[in-house]
């Protein structure tokens, strides 16, 4: 390129700029997707988790088979806070995909639904939605989302083979849990508690999954917490979660590679019995079913144990929602509504269950779990069926959630910081977030 005679270089420069400017007019865009005549093409934005993408593709496949005049293109976005950001940015700039999947609860509230989303109250399926779920996608009295996925438990996954071998009972209190851990450690074949801090978000279950126990001790905690009247550091029941995280580390119950292990390693360890307990969301079960299909029924589930066996129960996460942004209009809006109606129908549930095993009950009446769901999902049912046996996680009841909880949990869980200090630090983190959101009372 540079062996042109020097005199020509000036001309080259001019040409380079000209062609650069011409190039900028187009970016690569997508390969080989174009609008065919008569079809309505809509886009669906989902997060890039393997299970979500698979489910979305299955649902889209089944939906378009029934609606041949609609094509749906699945787009993906990163997970976690980065994904949140992309969703918010795209909404505020008005170039959101025609339908998108996003969390329900406080993250949904942060999207300013009244301003940015299309309400669904006129849709027939709204009456069929689970009441708990409905509250998590309602803003200003209107419903904005159709449930995508299933309820999910945040609990302790345990290896049933290990329990069988050592003759252990499912614990209902923290002291029973620690007694089991002591036996497992003495046995020496499995790590009592699995932690996977290479992916920091996995560290939060001891706190987030313990919420049922917190609200069992003080049913108004969520409300007071939102109003800046209750704190983690000063509410004994809430502080427990942090204390538990420290205790398992102090007792040396963690897997040796807890600091460098990944989520995926944790799934493998609990499935193969290399570890006995893994506090985790039941979403992990879907991955175990993919990677270790023959071991998935070795994994059972119990709620995070608290102080009181009588009130012990399960913390559940509501499914995410499928939403239509206000920017979708015309034929695309019609197509988008049809897609949501399909997602919230029994056929839609079947389609989702086909793609990846459900991680808990569906939020649509008339949707049954398939008979062959993994053992750990079956273990959720008694909690759900029992009156007062389960609660929604705090993030669905309160918009207040500090962004640094995962780092703080890693610090407490690896002995860098003590539990009371960690809880106090989290309270400060929360305060910052509440102030940024401009919540009243902060």
């Amino acid at each position, binding site marked *: 390129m*540079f062996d042109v005679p*020097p*005199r*020509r*270089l*000036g*001309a080259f*420069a*001019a040409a*380079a*700029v000209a*062609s*650069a*400017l011409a*190039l*900028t*007019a*187009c*970016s*690569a*865009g*997508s*390969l080989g997707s174009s609008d065919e005549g008569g079809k309505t093409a809509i886009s669906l934005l989902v997060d*890039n988790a*393997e299970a979500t993408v698979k489910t979305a593709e299955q649902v889209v496949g089944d939906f378009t088979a029934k609606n041949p005049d609609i094509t749906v293109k699945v*787009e*993906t*976005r*990163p*997970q976690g806070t980065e994904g949140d950001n*992309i969703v918010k*940015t795209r909404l505020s*700039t008005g*170039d959101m995909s025609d339908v998108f999947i996003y969390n329900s609860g406080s993250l949904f509230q942060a999207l300013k639904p009244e301003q940015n989303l299309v309400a669904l109250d006129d849709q027939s399926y709204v009456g069929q939605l689970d009441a708990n779920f409905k509250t998590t996608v309602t803003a200003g009295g209107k419903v904005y989302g159709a449930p995508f996925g299933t309820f999910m438990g945040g609990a302790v996954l345990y290896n049933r083979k290990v329990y069988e071998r050592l003759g252990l009972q499912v614990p209902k209190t923290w002291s029973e849990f620690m007694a089991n851990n002591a036996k497992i450690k003495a046995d020496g074949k499995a790590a009592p508690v699995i932690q996977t801090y290479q992916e920091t978000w996995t560290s939060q279950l001891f706190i987030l999954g313990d919420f049922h126990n917190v609200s069992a001790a003080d049913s108004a905690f969520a409300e007071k917490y939102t109003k800046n009247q209750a704190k983690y550091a000063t509410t004994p029941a809430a502080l427990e979660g942090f204390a538990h995280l420290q205790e398992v580390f102090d007792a040396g119950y963690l897997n040796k590679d807890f600091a460098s292990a*990944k*989520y*995926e390693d944790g799934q493998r360890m609990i499935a193969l019995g290399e570890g006995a307990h893994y506090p985790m969301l039941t979403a992990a079960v879907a991955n175990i079913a993919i990677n270790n299909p023959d071991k998935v029924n070795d994994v059972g589930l119990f709620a995070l144990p608290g102080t009181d066996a009588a009130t012990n129960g399960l913390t559940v996460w509501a499914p995410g929602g499928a939403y239509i942004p206000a920017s979708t209009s015309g034929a695309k809006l019609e197509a988008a509504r049809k897609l949501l109606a399909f997602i919230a129908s029994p056929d839609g549930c079947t389609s989702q269950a086909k793609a990846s095993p459900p991680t808990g009950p569906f939020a649509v009446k008339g949707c049954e779990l398939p008979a062959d769901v993994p053992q750990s999902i079956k273990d959720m049912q008694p909690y759900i069926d029992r009156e007062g046996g389960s609660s929604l996680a705090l993030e669905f009841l309160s918009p207040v959630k500090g962004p640094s909880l995962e780092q703080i949990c890693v610090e407490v869980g690896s002995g860098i910081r003590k539990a009371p200090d960690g809880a106090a630090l989290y309270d400060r983190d929360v305060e910052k977030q509440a102030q940024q959101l401009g919540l009243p009372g902060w």
Partner: protein
Amino acid sequence: MTGRRNYWLSGVAILLSIVVFLVPFAFIVLTAVKSRQQAALLDFSWPENFQIVRNFVDVVEARDYMLIIAFINSTILTVSSVAIMVVLAAMVAYVLQRRKSRWNVLINFLVLSGLIIPPAVVPTIWVLQKLGLFRTMPGLILVEVAFGISFAILLFRAFIATIPRELDEAAIIDGASPFRLFFRVIFPLLRSVAITVIVVQSVTVFNDFVNPLYFLPGDQNATVQLTLYNFSSQFTSQYNLLFMNILLITIPPLIMFLFFNRRIVSGMTSGAIKG
């Protein structure tokens, strides 16, 4: 310096270079051609069975040929922004070096600021949005130009100082317009430093991860660095594909390197350091 060859030292140097620099690259290459199971062991071993083609196809096909789109996007981004940067920076450096005026202090200060000040990300997004350039390729290209131009100006200015002014004067007497003078006489002489600028900035822009992440989000617009980022979460345990991807996106810089290896040093020697 000394004429004697030092065999002992050479041996140690070569051995160390193998351990420190070649082993990591060998690790990337070996892991990239392994099967998923073997790659998951993360060890430094010979692949049991070579899956070059399969891994290659898997990575390329993943997510709807995202890597191909990313390569096209990265090429457009790199070529456009570096071309614009080279020409604009050379123009600024030329006038800045040639014409003494009281503005020079301010301009030099601004140029240096561009090198030192960390760009304010969110306000930049805000400006791009106002201009309708957020999430567009031209927007990102101009951002890369704005963020990289200072360094290019400094390199060019140091080099232009070595070009005798008599040349300008001769051309002016011949009646050349300023435009002609610069593009026909001066610019062609900047060849060696231009190569340095082009290599350094192409590599920087091609490998840039932060700016596309902030200013051009979305799978449709992914650049190659973002594919790596996306895949690292998607292929949590598929290390073979992850490393195949690393390998593939290392090829363009490698080609650049093979072409310009010698010229980079000579470009640096010819002026950059004197600045």
